[in-house]
């Protein structure tokens, strides 16, 4: 089952940033996206999560079209009602967490459940507490985001995304805003999720992590997929010169 299919996605700002990208993500698989700065990785995730509108192409979640493209080449989005349903299929973890600073840790997790999914307060609290426990943050339930370390904040934001029970979770450089000594705790959480067969798309600069956790690696440069395949091949034996040059800058 394909959780996500992207076909011929194109997106321009001043210049074309995504030039005809297609990819599929199967249920339970982890896709790692690597590539130099400015290659369009974040833009791709933002298009997939509908934070940006695309110029043309198709985005399909669970066989439901969020966007399709007219014969004349214009992207057409589904109705707001359909989009609201499709929205529930995915979650996004931001580089800089974007927790709600005026809500306690537990409320950050439960409020979307109550406000958006109309769950009861008790049910939401149960989900929230279970996820906090999983993230090793049970003692921080009533803390505010400003009282937490970056790593703890990121774990709360992962819990917040997981609470809504998405079919697929996107991560945009989840450790880039963290001190080096804190990246480990986030990578471990993501590894655990991969073990549980959570479907994920992860943009990262952590090459060894990408190689370990991903089932499929995509190397992007200049708005196109330059090379892709299984992690061993792409990261240990890249074929393309640009991939080689990029990977050479990382100590392997």
């Amino acid at each position: 089952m394909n959780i996500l299919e992207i076909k011929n996605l194109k997106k321009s700002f001043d210049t074309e940033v995504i030039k005809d990208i297609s990819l599929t993500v199967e249920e339970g698989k982890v896709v790692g996206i690597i590539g130099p700065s400015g290659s369009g990785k974040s833009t791709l995730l933002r298009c997939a999560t509908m934070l940006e509108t695309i110029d043309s192409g198709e985005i399909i979640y669970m066989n439901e079209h969020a966007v399709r493209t007219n014969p004349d080449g214009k992207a057409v989005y589904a109705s707001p009602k359909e989009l609201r349903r499709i929205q529930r299929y995915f979650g996004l973890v931001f580089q800089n967490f974007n927790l709600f600073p005026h809500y306690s840790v537990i409320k950050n997790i439960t409020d979307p459940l109550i406000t958006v999914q109309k769950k009861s307060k008790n049910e939401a609290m149960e989900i929230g507490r279970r996820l906090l426990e999983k993230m090793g943050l049970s003692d921080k339930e009533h803390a505010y985001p400003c009282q937490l370390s970056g790593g703890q904040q990121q774990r709360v934001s992962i819990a917040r995304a997981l609470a809504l029970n998405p079919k697929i979770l996107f991560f945009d450089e989840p450790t880039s805003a963290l001190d080096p000594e804190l990246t480990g705790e986030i990578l471990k959480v993501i590894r655990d999720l991969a073990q549980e067969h959570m479907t994920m798309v992860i943009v990262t600069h952590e090459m060894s992590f990408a190689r370990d956790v991903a089932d499929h690696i995509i190397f992007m440069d200049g708005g196109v997929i330059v090379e892709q395949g299984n992690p061993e091949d792409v990261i240990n034996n890249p074929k393309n010169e640009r991939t080689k040059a990029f990977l050479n800058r990382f100590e392997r």
Partner: protein
Amino acid sequence: MGYVGHGSVPCPVEFVIKLNGGALVELSVMLSILSKGMLLSVEIFVLTLLFSIPLGFVVTFGRMSKNFIIRNLVKIYISIMRGTPLMLQLMVVYFGPNLIFGIKISNEYRFTAVIIGFVINYAAYFAEIYRSGIESIPVGQYEAAKVLGYNKFQTFMKIILPQVIKRILPAVTNEVITLIKDTSLAYVISIPEMFSQAKALASSQNTLVPYAIAGVFYYIFNYIVAYIMEWIENKFSYYKIS
């Protein structure tokens, strides 16, 4: 309290002279006259805030509207409100209907005019404060809310507004304190508020005591308001905005 509910509002000078007929009045009489002025000042203050604080949001939304015409009309309105003296605006609101449209203005209109003048002026100032607050909220907050499935209304009411309020409270406090002192401008259209009463008394009694009392009044008024605002700010201090 003769002036509550927009009743007849006599001219302050007449009022005092009629009362004492040129003779000196006792301190207690002076205080009773001044306290009526005080009540009127407080009334202007409360009514102005009551209407201008919500109206400021309407103005902000107009100012931030995607509609070119609405946005620019509101922009002009704000720039006039901020670019001309409040005193002049009060005069325009009071005398304008007569001078421009030839409508006969009743005495009752005097108080209404003061409130209208203050409200439209302060709404413009509040609107600009609200706008700076709204624009200071990181775009990531909107994006997080959107991905989590909050609709636009929920996002504004639950995620954005509480943070905006925290951010703008210090600036709002400044405006509120300024308003206390600005209430004295109502004298230009002969509203017998605190300061005009003090002035009238001071000249008819040939003493500076009413001014001293007025000074103490404004100071205490400020003190109470500052205390309340600080209390509200403390209510929002349980978290920090990064």
